[in-house]
């Protein structure tokens, strides 16, 4: 990167606040709106499990671009005019969707094979047509190749305005069809039974994807436009379970990717806008994947750790209770952790976490080298031990397991026994006379 000249802070500020020239500003706004539309449309595509469909139809636009160029040139028009090329791209994209639909409907081939075949064959056809365009020697192939990788920097203000207009239209259309899209995204079978025309709604959704894809060709290119559609929507999925919220978040992510990506590419030479926009979107996805509050990886790991610590803590409480019981000491008496088999095998970190958790909840006291149960801890330990033994009794008497086999399974289930189930266990054991007396616990099966 020796050749890279880093921009000054003032330049960064100028670009980000749209003061770096009219053209740059219009392009940034256009691409940001494109990202917004892609996020909105993409949310439904992802929920409808059609993510790869957007890849298919973006590749499928290539022959349309080539044919539109040839047709316009043959008719004496300007082959390179953007509306002509985009019309051809749209037609080919819709044709690609229809062919996938036909293959799935009329053959035994799975949808993914149909999509892959359409993607590659259409793109191959496009390559053949482009190679033919090259033989014409009009020099137009350079203009068409722009669509494969995109070239936001070369966009004119007029192109950007077109993108902005189409993107706004796509968002409005989505808003109009919101209820229909929601119905087919969540339960297509139910939607069909309710009388929704699922096929038509799907076609409308895919047409919107085609439209967004086609206007995105210029900015990010046909290989990367799929990223603009899928990645913000997939990232938004981590933050919420509500459709409306997800659409808004995806729109925001898409807009931010477009805006920041175009700005970076305007500031740094040799950073192509298409790639940078997608990398910004990818960074947002990574952040969402790890840090989203409920569905994120970090949150899941934290929940897992909490559960683990709480389960181990319950085991320790019961071990303390049973040790006191065996030695016929009061349950609140201090005990040495080294005497408890369960705690001896713990790695130091787990031991520290479990003890800290129990003390934080006021169930355990530290007493010099020993620990002691607080009154609340004694109550909890009594309850846990009782649940454990109730479940063991139940397994022996009703599931007819051998007493030597029940300890492990009771270990697993005792943490999730709720009050109603405990009451039922008590009632059942009472009917066969094995329920211990008030405030007592059943005698240990293993003593």
């Amino acid at each position: 990167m020796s050749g890279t000249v880093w921009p000054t802070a003032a330049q960064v500020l100028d670009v980000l606040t749209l003061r770096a020239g009219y053209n740059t500003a219009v392009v940034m706004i256009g691409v940001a709106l494109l990202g917004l539309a892609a996020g909105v449309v993409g949310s439904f595509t992802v929920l409808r499990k059609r993510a790869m469909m957007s890849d298919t139809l973006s590749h499928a636009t290539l022959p349309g671009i080539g044919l539109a160029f040839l047709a316009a040139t043959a008719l004496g028009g300007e082959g390179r005019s953007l509306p002509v090329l985009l019309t051809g791209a749209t037609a080919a994209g819709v044709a690609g969707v229809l062919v996938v639909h036909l293959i799935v409907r009329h053959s035994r081939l799975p949808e993914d094979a149909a999509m892959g075949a359409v993607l590659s064959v259409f793109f191959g056809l496009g390559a053949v047509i482009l190679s033919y365009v090259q033989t014409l020697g009009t020099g137009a192939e350079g203009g068409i190749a722009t669509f494969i990788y995109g070239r936001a920097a070369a966009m004119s203000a007029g192109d950007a305005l077109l993108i902005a207009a189409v993107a706004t239209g796509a968002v409005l259309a989505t808003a109009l069809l919101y209820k229909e899209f929601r119905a087919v995204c969540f339960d297509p079978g139910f939607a069909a039974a309710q009388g929704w025309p699922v096929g038509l709604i799907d076609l409308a959704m895919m047409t919107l994807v085609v439209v967004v894809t086609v206007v995105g060709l210029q900015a990010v290119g046909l290989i990367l436009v799929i990223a603009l559609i899928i990645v913000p929507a997939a990232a938004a999925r981590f933050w919420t379970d509500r459709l409306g919220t997800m659409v808004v978040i995806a729109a925001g992510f898409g807009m931010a990717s477009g805006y920041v990506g175009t700005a970076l590419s305007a500031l740094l030479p040799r950073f192509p806008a298409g790639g940078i926009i997608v990398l910004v979107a990818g960074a947002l996805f990574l952040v969402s994947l790890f840090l989203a509050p409920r569905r994120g990886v970090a949150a899941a790991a934290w929940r897992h750790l909490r559960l683990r610590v709480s389960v181990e803590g319950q085991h320790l409480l019961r071990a303390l209770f049973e040790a006191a019981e065996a030695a016929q000491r009061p349950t609140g008496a201090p005990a040495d952790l080294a005497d408890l088999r369960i705690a001896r095998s713990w790695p130091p970190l787990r031991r520290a976490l479990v003890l800290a958790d129990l003390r934080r909840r006021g169930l355990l006291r530290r007493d010099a080298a020993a620990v002691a149960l607080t009154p609340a801890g004694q109550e909890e330990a009594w309850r846990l031990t009782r649940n454990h033994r109730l479940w063991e009794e139940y397994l022996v008497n009703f599931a007819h397991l051998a007493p030597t086999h029940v300890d492990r399974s009771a270990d697993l289930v005792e943490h999730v026994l709720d009050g109603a189930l405990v009451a039922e266990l008590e009632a059942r054991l009472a009917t066969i006379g094995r329920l211990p007396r008030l405030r007592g616990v059943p005698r240990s099966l293993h003593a």
Partner: protein
Amino acid sequence: MQTFLQLDLPAMLAALFATMACALLGNFLVLRRQSLMGDAISHAVLPGIVGAFLLAGTRAAGPLFAGAIAAALVAVVLIELVRRYGRLESGTAMGVVFSVMFAAGVVMMEQAAAQNVDLDADCILYGQLEGILWLAAAGPESLLDPAALAALPREVVVLAGVLAVTALAVFAFRKELTLASFDPELATTLGFPAGMINLGLMVLVGAVAVAAFEAVGSILVIAMFICPAAAARMLTDRLGVQIALSLAFAAVAALGGYALAAFAPLWLGVDRALAASGMIAVVSGVLMALAILLGPVHGVLGRRMAGRRVA
């Protein structure tokens, strides 16, 4: 004749070996509903190729191949991780991973271009079938001349080797692959590690894709992973027959597509050939469309006729 041997024969051989190797593995991808894996991998290797190039500083095949394989493995693992830990549908996970990796590759390529090196993305997309030359060929006798044969273009030799290795691997593990493709759970309960078989298949797919790219481009690779196998699947219910048919379709597509691209423009009076790899993809698509329409039992026509007989 000499022109044919120097220009067309090596290109046709490269296309033939590449398409057959892809079609062979494609049978399992189509059965396992992983057809798009070929697409994902073929995009995702770009950063690996460019990265290896930037590190090694040469266009030597070794480092590029290693980089591409590494990127393919990273992509496969990432897709699985995103799918599992992100709890996303597999298509979404695939799309996210490969498009972001491809974007990274595009950005890295611009950086490479800054160092005045020629690494052309078009080359990776469309391939350079037309650039594979066998200059040592003097005439038909060269086909038997060890010295001339030793000078066969590297791509042809590499692809022949890849085809041989793929065929051997599929033959050696045919039982495991079949079982894991039709019923992964059963395979696992029978003691065949379906996960490992899957990973092994993906490594093979990555290796074949990468080897084939250089010669024929990623578009052709994706088409060949899917179309011949899908066409064969329309014609038979037996895996062995399906594999044989798919290889035959691949060969027809490779030779027919190349011929159409190279020679048809001449008959039409155009003096430049069309993109051969694109044309091969188109021919394979036409074959698949024909199989879907005309397949005797599962085809559209076949089912119509069966319906009429019942009525």
